[in-house]
């Protein structure tokens, strides 16, 4: 039993789900749901359909080259079953998965950092320009002036004492 990958969206195809299409040149296409299947029949390119993983990876929106991604791949050399190897693999798998998810998340965060900077500067400029919409100009200024004068007097007093 294997969990296959959908040809179109690269999602998991669990056993008993989806469709498989075998072409005349013996290439096998698996689809996780009829959405992917219908898009395929319409001859759409998954690398150009924005919601697929293929697009995201080719457009650089997701982590592509990383050591943590090299752990999960189909190897052509079969390995005979050894209990301890299997046990170790299961544990290692869990740790690798953690690291992988962390790294993927960090990649996306880094990508969106620029947007955050922009957001920040936009907020600042917005406040600078349109503060008059929510606060009357010189609204708190009188109070502030008072506080400033009080503070200055206090300093003078201290200075006078010294």
């Amino acid at each position, binding site marked *: *039993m*294997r*969990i296959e990958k959908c040809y179109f969206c690269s999602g*998991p195809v669990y056993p008993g789900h989806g469709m498989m299409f075998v072409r005349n040149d013996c290439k096998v296409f698996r689809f996780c749901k009829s959405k992917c299947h219908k898009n395929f029949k319409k001859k759409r390119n998954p690398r150009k359909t924005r919601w697929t993983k293929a697009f995201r990876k080719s457009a650089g929106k997701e982590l592509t080259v990383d*050591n*943590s991604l*090299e*752990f*999960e*791949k*189909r*190897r052509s050399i079969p*390995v*005979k*079953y*050894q*209990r301890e*190897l*299997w046990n*170790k*693999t*299961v544990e*290692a*798998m*869990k*740790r*690798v*998965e953690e*690291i992988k998810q*962390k790294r993927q998340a*960090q990649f996306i*965060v880094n990508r969106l*950092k620029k947007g*955050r900077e922009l957001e*920040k500067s*936009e*907020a*600042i400029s*917005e*406040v600078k320009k*349109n*503060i008059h*919409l*929510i606060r009357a100009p010189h609204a708190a200024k009188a109070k502030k002036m008072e506080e400033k004068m009080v503070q200055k007097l206090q300093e003078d007093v201290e200075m006078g004492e010294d």
Partner: protein
Amino acid sequence: MALYNFKKIMVVPTAKDFIDLTLSKTQRKTPTVVHKHYQIHRIRHFYMRKVKFTQQNYHDRLSQILTDFPKLDDVHPFYADLMNVLYDKDHYKLALGQINIAKNLIDNVAKDYVRLMKYGDSLYRCKQLKRAALGRMCTIMKRQKQSLEYLEQVRQHLSRLPTIDPNTRTLLLCGYPNVGKSSFINKVTRADVEVQPYAFTTKSLFVGHMDYKYLRWQVVDTPGILDHPLEERNTIEMQAITALAHLRSAVLYVMDVSEQCGHNLEQQLKLFENIRPLFANKPLTIVANKCDVKKITELSEENQKIFSDLVADGIPVIETSTLTEEGVMQVKTEACDRLLAHRVDTKMKGKKVHDVLNRLHLAMPAKRDEKDRPPFIPEGALTRRKAMEVDAPKRKLERDLEVELGDDYVLDLQKYWDLMNKDEKSDKIPEVWEGHNIADYIDPEIMKHLVELEKEEELKVQAGEYDSDEESEDDEMKEIRQLAKQIKEKKKLKFMQSIEKDVHGPRMPRTAKKSHYVAQARRSRSTTRKRKREPSAPPLSRTRSQSASRPPRDASGVRDAKMLKKVKMMMKNSQKDMNRMGKKGEADRHVFDLKPKHLLAGKRKSGSTDRR
């Protein structure tokens, strides 16, 4: 080669049937209506047609009979002789000759009467002529009754003759009745010849087929032959003699050692000597049958001498018992080998061989050095061959295990696995974890890779790649963000309010061209003002102010802003469904597709009827 046509001979009808057939055919297939008042040539033509049609039919059928039946001169002499024995050559030829004569007579009759009919001057005359013609033809056929009956019987018997190919490899069994020829053929081939204790159980020739050395062999079983001169032989024995005479085969002369057949050994020997001339040019083998009852060694001195004489003559004598099957295979191989050798010899002496021999050339590779290169047979092959010969005890199969355990048997192929640890064979192997296939991660060096990965990860953490920037935001920034949010909201509100005011009313978009209709509308207002109204007519601005004093329709009857909001929401909610369905309004109940094809047509495979 008339081998197969014996079965394809057309049925020969009896004379009565023949006549009925032909006359009814004439009745059906020719026009039936003729009147006195027709023109004479038409009447003549009508009756001539009938006569000719009848003649044609008779002619066709008789010719077919003549061609179907084999001509004794054209078939293989074996078949010619066999048919002579069975059906008497003279009688056969006579019958066919009679048929031929009948055919010619019918043709002549028809010819004559057609000629006469040309001079018929009335319907009555022509009709009488036709009657006469047909009558004569039918009488001729009636006279052939005997011949036709005889030919039908011949045909039936012919079609049941066994198909013996006179040119292929054949083994012929002969001997006294009841010596065991039929039992022998039953043992060696798949034939099922009757075996009974009375003499002349086999009354005709039987053929069986067997395979030896990848070739097909015919085995011919004959009826028993008794010892009397040729002239006194009956039909049954003659068949055997014919077969002996004409088939180029290996002869197996079967003798009964135990003398159970009712004839002692001297008589059998005498018969053998009598028919010996028929064995010329045929490899001969003597089969001493029924050796389970009595062996040659148990015989008396004289009888043993007979056999030793035969052996001395160069004829192999093999003891067999068709009951216990000993010696049967030996006889078969011996006879087949000898026949093959004989056939090869004859071919070599013939003329056709040289054509083939000239073209054959066996190439042997020239030795390039003195090194000896024997053929290589791997050890496994040798052991297997030895095991086959010795018939070593087979290893226990799963099937045997299944039979032993019966219901408790469980097929477990994992026990044959070749693993490094034997006790891991019955492990349940996990396949999937959280959407990942474990088999994709299996790598003998996975721990090494994992250690490297961990190191990398530590380095990254130390380098501060995973620190988040959120904490580096100070309070001031947070306040600015909040203010910005408020400003945005306020802006939105203002925008929406300004839209609601709808100061100018519905407007043409700026990009719309100043069309004909707009100009017309403007014009119509000025042109309809045909006569000047009284000053009491209110100016435009007045209507505007009037409408300004009245509340707009969607705010009439509404007490406060909260209620207004609720009212608006209710209105929008009630419109939501209609908008979604693309309806013009409440009254739009039009169904665009009353009978959608996808719900009503086709087989119901999977899915419910609202979407199939």
